[in-house]
């Protein structure tokens, strides 16, 4: 393998990995605070991408406004999902909310098939994001450089909110014990709504980035990326924001490098990635950056 080719593979891996990281951040945030694995995350992700597409093609909005608008609309949708599907189950066993989120996931997918139709749509991309930069034999999209930076910014922003602001304090309190937080005067339902709003905004942002990289919209487009990002989040230690970023990057690198070094096994790359994941989880059951499990006294 020539050096140029290896560097090309590295950039491919960085792109894919930081996209996984972007999606995983939202997954892990909702889990970290509510202990709920939100399987509808991939569908929120899909809706975010569709909303931008609508904004640009139907209402002829400029890109930045369409993106901001889509993120706002998607986070409202996320809050509504919480009210309808999760809030009534707040005091039910955790497994009920999990099942409810699977239901929401199927509902949103089929809703999108009915409303958006199953025909794949093209995505118009701003030219400056896709003008290929050629350095020797290596070809890089400007997009590729945006993803890691964006992942880093979102990670830092999220850490700031969770550890330095008042709603963040509420979030951390809720993650420890909902009932006690309520007794201490934390507006539990409002904090949870904010959490879902932020989680959905992150999903929308990653959905938009995904659609820019793989310019095609389909109602089922969130399934596989959502699944991969969930794996990345578990791998990094679910609940840990830094862990999600690292998990996403590692998963992206594994997927690309398996094809790069063992091309004949390209069809089994998911299998290899997941076997590696199982091995790591066997050694470190809480993931790379997961909290140590402690028994409550």
């Amino acid at each position, binding site marked *: 393998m020539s050096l140029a080719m290896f560097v090309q593979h590295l950039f491919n891996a960085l792109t894919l990995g930081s996209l996984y990281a972007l999606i995983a951040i939202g997954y892990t945030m909702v889990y970290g605070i509510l202990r709920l694995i939100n399987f509808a995350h991939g569908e929120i992700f899909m809706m975010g991408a569709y909303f931008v597409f609508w904004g640009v093609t139907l209402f002829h909005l400029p890109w930045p406004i369409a993106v901001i608008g889509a993120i706002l609309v998607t986070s409202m949708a996320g809050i509504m999902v919480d009210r*309808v599907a999760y809030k009534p189950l707040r005091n039910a066993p955790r497994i009920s909310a999990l099942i409810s989120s699977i239901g929401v996931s199927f509902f949103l997918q089929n*809703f999108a098939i009915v409303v958006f139709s199953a*025909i794949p749509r093209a995505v118009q991309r701003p030219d400056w994001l896709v003008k290929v930069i050629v350095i020797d034999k290596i070809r890089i999209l400007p997009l590729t450089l945006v993803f890691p930076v964006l992942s880093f910014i979102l990670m830092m922003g999220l850490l700031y909110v969770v550890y330095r602001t008042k709603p963040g304090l509420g979030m951390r309190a809720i993650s420890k014990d909902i009932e006690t937080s309520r007794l201490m005067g934390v507006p539990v339902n409002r904090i949870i709504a904010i959490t879902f709003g932020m989680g959905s905004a992150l999903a929308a942002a990653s959905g938009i980035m995904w659609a820019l990289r*793989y*310019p095609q919209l*389909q109602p089922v487009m969130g399934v596989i990326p959502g699944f991969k990002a969930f794996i990345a989040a578990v791998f990094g230690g679910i609940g840990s924001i830094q862990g999600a970023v690292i998990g996403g990057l590692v998963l992206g690198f594994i*997927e690309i490098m398996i094809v790069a070094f063992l*091309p004949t096994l390209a069809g089994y790359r998911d299998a290899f990635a997941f076997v590696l994941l199982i091995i790591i989880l066997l050694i470190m059951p809480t993931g790379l950056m997961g909290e140590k499990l402690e028994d409550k006294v």
Partner: protein
Amino acid sequence: MKKGLLLGLIVVIAVIGFMMMRGEKAPEAPVVEEPVAEGEVIRIGVYLPLTGQMAMGGQLELDGIKMAQVEMPEVLGRKVELFVVDNKSDKVESANAVKRLIEKEQVVAVIGTYGSSLAMAGGEVAESAGIPMVGTSCTNPLVTQGKKYIFRVCFIDPLQGAGAATYANKVLGAKKAALLIDVANDYSVGLAGFFEKSFLKLGGEIVSKLNYNSGDQDFTAQLTEIISKSPDILFVPSYFAEGAIIMKQAQELGVTFQIMGGDAMDNPQIVEIGGDAVEGFVHTTFPYDPSMKDMNPVAQKFTDNWKKNRTDDPNVNAALGYESYMILLDAITRAGNTDPEAVTAALAATKDFAGVTGLTTINASHDAEKPIGIVEIKEGKKLYIATIAPEL
């Protein structure tokens, strides 16, 4: 708390209702029309992917079938009624769809489907029930192999693979080929294998053969690897939606070699999704396209009738949908009744039926023998450039 939930549900349902009323393109729900007394109508089942990954092809085939029904609404002096079920591009749903058509709707014959893996799943059910099935564009040989009741109106992949290899080698002069295959798809694996076999036989060389899985969206690793082997041609036997994304990524990675595909790329949407990345792309298809010269009279009539009612161009899937209905009705006419055994025998005896894609004869393996069409994307438009007889 209960009130909130109820309110939320009402809002959601109202929103859906509103969206549907506004006439957004809702996928076809299973058609169940008012029951008619037995013996009066001839009940024909249709199962196609109307939602999911293969929806575009399935929708077009359904449009073709419906157009054929409008032109020929009766046979044996009895009205034909279609029962349409969506198989959702899914193997399990396909089997369920055919089961439902046969057991609940009591159809005498089944038309479908787009997608070889779907046709195999549905075909098993029709075969064991003894109900004849006419496949539209399922090209994998296994669909009809060893089956008594399963037919199709299209050619099969050994022929198509040989056609693509012949065109690549003889016309484009390619010596080194690379393959990018969806390992989770019967059609893709089959067609790639037949291409490889014929290409080697013609004296070519396969320099790279890489796999991916249905649903993958990142192909950069495979493409980078293929570029390093500098082939003359890359053969991608995928569906058009994936094909368009693969070509986009190939363009970004600076691919200069020719890319070729199979009949599943034959969809108007490929240009819209692929944009300038699909420019110059060549694929094999069935011998019909609205852009072809020297159309036969049936194809001419089909094209004119289609354009009379719609703004878009017909494609080969619509033509095959149309053809499958016509061939089935022709068989029912010759059988003189709707007994499944008689219809099956009549289908097997179909000879020189003049259809949109030329004269159709059903051979011993229940496949239609047809020449191979070659389409190229030029200046954002599909152009039918050649009809070739493959060198097997």
